[in-house]
């Protein structure tokens, strides 16, 4: 593995719940290389989403180190974190998280708005991204005029439009039927083939099987970390 894009050491995250302290992550260490396709699995409550939020700079750790692209991000300010999210991270959520009143095109343009890209360039880059996920003909549709699979493709296009270092997907197929899930996995496989680093959380073994490495969390710790031979790759 070349120099890792993500380097995590003894990462912890505690939540104070009144008098009780919930230890969502109890010291996770992990290296993720460029162009890796990683699946994170584990039972409910094991800390998968917490882990993804850390990696995606939506949340800051209680302890430990997190290096992204050679930069220690756990100490960054709010605005710096926003900038990292904008430039380095592409999110895909289980519930799509599209703006309901905006068209596909506008949804995909959003990260570019915050990157300060001119509106002309935004349009062309957003429509190119929609083309990449096979939705070139759905640019003016609103989320409620699209199927679940199509909504998730819009979300993927939005995650890709800023050419992020890593694509993060927290249960991207959790709300989709198996046929549609398979289609989304084909999109991921294609992106991975083009060199995209992907980190994906899933409950389903056959979804995780698309990745070439699987990390299993249990009680906020890494239980197993092994290579899988990505079936699609």
């Amino acid at each position: 593995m070349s120099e890792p894009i993500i380097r995590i050491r003894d990462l912890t995250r505690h939540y104070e719940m009144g008098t009780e302290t919930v230890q969502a992550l109890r010291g996770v260490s992990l290296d993720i290389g460029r162009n890796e396709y990683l699946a994170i699995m584990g039972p409910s409550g094991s800390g998968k989403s917490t882990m993804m939020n850390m990696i995606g700079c939506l949340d800051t750790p209680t302890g430990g180190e997190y290096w992204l692209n050679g930069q220690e991000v756990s100490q960054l300010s709010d605005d710096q974190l926003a900038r990292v999210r904008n430039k380095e991270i592409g999110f895909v959520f289980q519930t799509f998280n599209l703006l309901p009143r905006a068209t596909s095109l506008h949804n995909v343009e959003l990260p570019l708005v915050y990157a300060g890209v001119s509106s002309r360039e935004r349009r062309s880059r957003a429509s190119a991204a929609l083309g990449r996920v096979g939705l070139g003909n759905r640019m003016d549709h609103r989320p409620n005029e699209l199927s679940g699979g199509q909504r998730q493709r819009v979300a993927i296009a939005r995650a890709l439009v800023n050419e992020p270092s890593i694509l993060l997907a927290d249960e991207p197929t959790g709300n989709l039927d198996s046929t549609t899930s398979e289609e989304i996995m084909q999109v991921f496989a294609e992106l991975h083939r083009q060199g995209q680093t992907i980190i994906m959380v899933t409950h389903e073994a056959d979804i995780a099987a698309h990745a070439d490495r699987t990390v299993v969390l249990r009680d906020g710790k890494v239980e197993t970390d092994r290579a899988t031979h990505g079936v699609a790759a």
Partner: protein
Amino acid sequence: MPWLEAVRLALKTIRAQKLKSFFSLIGVLIGVTFLIAVVSIVTGMNNYMEDKFANALIGLNTFQLRQRPNFTSGNVTDDMWREWSRRPRISYDDAAYIKAHVKTPVVYANFCSDRATVNYNGKAAKDIELVGTEPTYFDIKNYKLTAGRPFAAQEMQLGLPVLVIGSEVAEKLLKGVDPIGKEVTMYGLPYRVIGVVERQGTLFGLSLDKFVIMPFTAPARRWICPINILDHLIIQASGPGTMTIAMGEVEASMRTRRHLKPGQENNFFLQTSEAALEGWEKISKILITALPLLVSISLIVGGIVIMNIMLMSVSERTREIGIRKALGARRRDVLAQFVVESATLSTVGAAMGIALGIALAFVVRAVTPLPAAVAPWSIVLGVVVGVLVGMVAGIYPANRAAKLDPIVALRAE
């Protein structure tokens, strides 16, 4: 985020929730409507009072030498009335004395008037202002004649019964005939019509064309200028500066003529159009002083309503805020989005208020004699006020939105 983007977003949100947006901006709308309408009416009145009222009644750079004020503002006590009535009246001789002693070049016109009935061919025009004066009066009033001519100095010296009539009198008595040379009667005396004055319009809905003008020496003087007595002497200067000088000279000449000792009050009065405007100025000052209070109250209420609507909007759109933050929106981007949205909302309210205020001003102008005139500065102020109220009202809700934790926000619903 570029602010134009934020405005576009705000307009979209407003359009998506028309009714709610309308109710939220109604306070600002009312405030700005008030502002525009009241300012329009007051400035309209000001223009009117200064241009038309003062000039129609007294004339430009003109003052009157009178026994007592004819436009009184404020309280006139019984004592003042008694003192005014005891004063000597202005006589022909007073006028002649002034004309002989004042050095500043000014134009004079002796003036007396009364209400009279003018008859022609069995028809009667009642309640006509009969003016007895000198030929200079036509210049002072800037009267243009549509037919005939004014009377000449010679006709005045001879006291000939000639008459220049107002356009409404001509309409009433001499419609369809050439008025020049026709013989009308007043007080049973025959008068020959020699001129018709161009239409002057109305003042507060009253006609300014119901008059006839004769030499003050003409036969009917018995009724309007009783032996040797004038209503007043009109004095017109060439400009505001000469008018002040002329007023000083007239005052000094009158004091000398009436043997007033230093310290003794004038027993005559110099009436200017400013004095006539005094009463109106008092009213307009009250209106303009009360206005900010009225406007502020509705703007504060409007601001509070907008703030609450924005707080509601922030909590309804928590998820959206989370999404935006996840995609890279900084605190200041979210802050700007909501402040701009609030300001846009409020400015839309202000714009509607401006439109409504102008409409109101026009309605007032159409259905009342009050001449409303929209003041451009009030429109600018309306817009500025709209933007400011929205920004101030938006800061607290926007700050709440900006401080939301992205994960908490994303989990909302």
